[in-house]
């Protein structure tokens, strides 16, 4: 199902077709729940929307490494350290698949990184909050990754093929991340009084920001309607947020932790949990760059990139010298990298089972 050969493309079977005719073919394919593939004709606005969304997702993966990597060197047991390292590594891997998916739309990783570094593209605001204690690692796994999964599972059916396929793999790994977060919080909640307090404090700080991850309410969401029509998005922000709250409330109870919302109560009529007002002023301030870690995150990212410039240049120079016949594209990637195994599925060497 990787290609849709029956669809005409400009310059081949579709020669002489009008823009309107292409659009009709595209609309019909989306309506029939078929996948749009890289070589298919697509409206420029569809392409631009996807690039924006995939880039923001990719940037979120690589910026999201920072708050968790903050605890790798202090992880309190070797088992937890292994789990955390594997998780942060997965995030780098997700960044790779997603930049790859964006490349199929004609936008290079370098171009996107440049936009991230110059502030022209965003990453998820959730990563502008600090990880202050070890319990934050658990809370991120449970709540932030939980929210991400709720958002991302429907993306596995997104109309754009390469993005949908990348999301299938991402979601599998995210579900492992979410479970480890829950399990880590459970250990803390059932541990010493100090550990329990640490867990509760982390949940208190991460709960509301997690709800904001679903984006503004539907009536204020700038891109939602068109994305729903194109089947890039399948459910509205508010629907997904409600789904997330409904999942979390019983889980919090099992954890023995409370959620910091006095208005949480079961609504028999709606068959959903009612919850309190979200303070969108905080969301907007952070989006504007005024969050607790905005500067820190982007500065670290830029510094890593700048400090690595000589390494990337060396790899390109070496590749030019040693494969003179191959024109080098200069994308900033080093094509002859040894391909390291990614993900969590292939660790069966000396590593102990970690989850």
């Amino acid at each position: 199902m990787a290609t849709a050969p029956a669809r005409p493309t400009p310059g081949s079977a579709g020669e002489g077709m009008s823009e309107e005719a292409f659009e009709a073919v595209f609309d019909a394919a989306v309506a029939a729940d078929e996948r749009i593939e890289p070589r298919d004709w697509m409206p420029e606005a569809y392409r631009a929307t996807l690039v924006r969304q995939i880039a923001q997702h990719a940037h979120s993966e690589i910026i999201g490494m920072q708050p968790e990597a903050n605890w790798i060197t202090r992880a309190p047991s070797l088992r937890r350290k292994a789990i955390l390292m594997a998780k942060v590594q997965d995030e780098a891997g997700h960044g790779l698949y997603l930049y790859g998916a964006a490349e199929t739309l004609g936008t290079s990783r370098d171009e996107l990184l440049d936009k991230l570094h110059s502030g022209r593209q965003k990453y998820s605001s959730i990563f502008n909050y600090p990880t202050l204690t070890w319990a934050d690692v658990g809370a991120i796994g449970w709540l932030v990754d939980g929210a991400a999964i709720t958002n991302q599972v429907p993306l596995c059916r997104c109309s754009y093929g390469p993005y949908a396929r990348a999301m299938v793999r991402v979601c599998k790994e995210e579900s492992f991340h979410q479970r480890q977060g829950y399990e880590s919080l459970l250990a803390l909640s059932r541990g010493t009084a100090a550990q329990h307090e640490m867990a509760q404090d982390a949940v208190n700080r991460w709960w509301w920001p997690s709800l904001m991850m679903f984006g503004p309410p539907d009536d204020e969401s700038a891109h939602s309607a068109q994305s729903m029509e194109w089947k890039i998005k399948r459910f509205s922000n508010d629907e997904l947020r409600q789904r997330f709250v409904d999942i979390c409330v019983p889980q919090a109870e099992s954890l023995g932790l409370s959620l910091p919302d006095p208005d949480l109560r079961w609504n028999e009529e709606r068959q959903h949990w009612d919850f309190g007002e979200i303070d969108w002023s905080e969301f907007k301030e952070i989006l504007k760059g005024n969050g607790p870690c905005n500067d820190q995150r982007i500065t670290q990212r830029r510094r890593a990139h700048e400090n690595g410039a000589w390494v990337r240049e060396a790899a390109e120079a070496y590749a030019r010298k040693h494969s003179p016949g191959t024109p080098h594209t200069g994308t900033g990637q080093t094509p002859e990298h040894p391909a390291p195994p990614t993900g969590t599925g292939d660790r069966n060497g000396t590593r102990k089972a970690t989850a």
Partner: protein
Amino acid sequence: MTAAAHTAALALGDDALVLSHRLGEWAGHAPVLEEEVALANIALDLLGQARVLLSMAGDEDELAYLREERAFRNLQLVEQPNGDFAHTLARQLYFSTYQHLLYGQLATGDSVFAPLAGKAVHETAYHRDHAEQWTRRLGDGTEESHRRMQRAATALWQFTGEMFQPVEGVPADWQQLERSWQQSVTEVLTSATLEVPEGPRTGAWKAGAGRQGLHTESFGRMLAEMQHLHRSHPGARW
């Protein structure tokens, strides 16, 4: 387990634990996304080895988190700070070559380390390949990368002699190991257009080195960071 095997498990386990920790410090700072994945992957392999080895010697967390600096038996090489990417890769080249050759020997023997070595030898083959490729790329890349790689290879040279000090309980042919290591490293450095460093391969300080529990200044700070949280909650389970 004999006392000698215990000492040996600590020496090999501490090497893996400490280098894994240093590589973990790269997370979020690597020069290119592929290297975020690769360095984390190597760190995870090493942590897996460390857990097996330390568990042979006792409780892995007690050993990792509750020992004082002088009780660690790792090589001084692996505790050296990351420095720039060239320093990290020079450290990788020297250590992964050693570890791959050593596990190669142990894998074919019948010591208590044979089962671990049999698996780890495949992991370290990849670590070694990764380090060799980068040494060539940096050595034979740009003027700047050449200069940095040469500086790193030279700076870490003084820590390489310690690797061949026989470790009680590790049934290896140390002379053979040293010969193979020298030959391989010389070949890689030369093909990377780098000079093989000429200085002595051990320090002038007669008190000893990592295997005797004598470490370098940055190691205490590394342990303070690594052990702080665990020690702040005595007896807690995580």
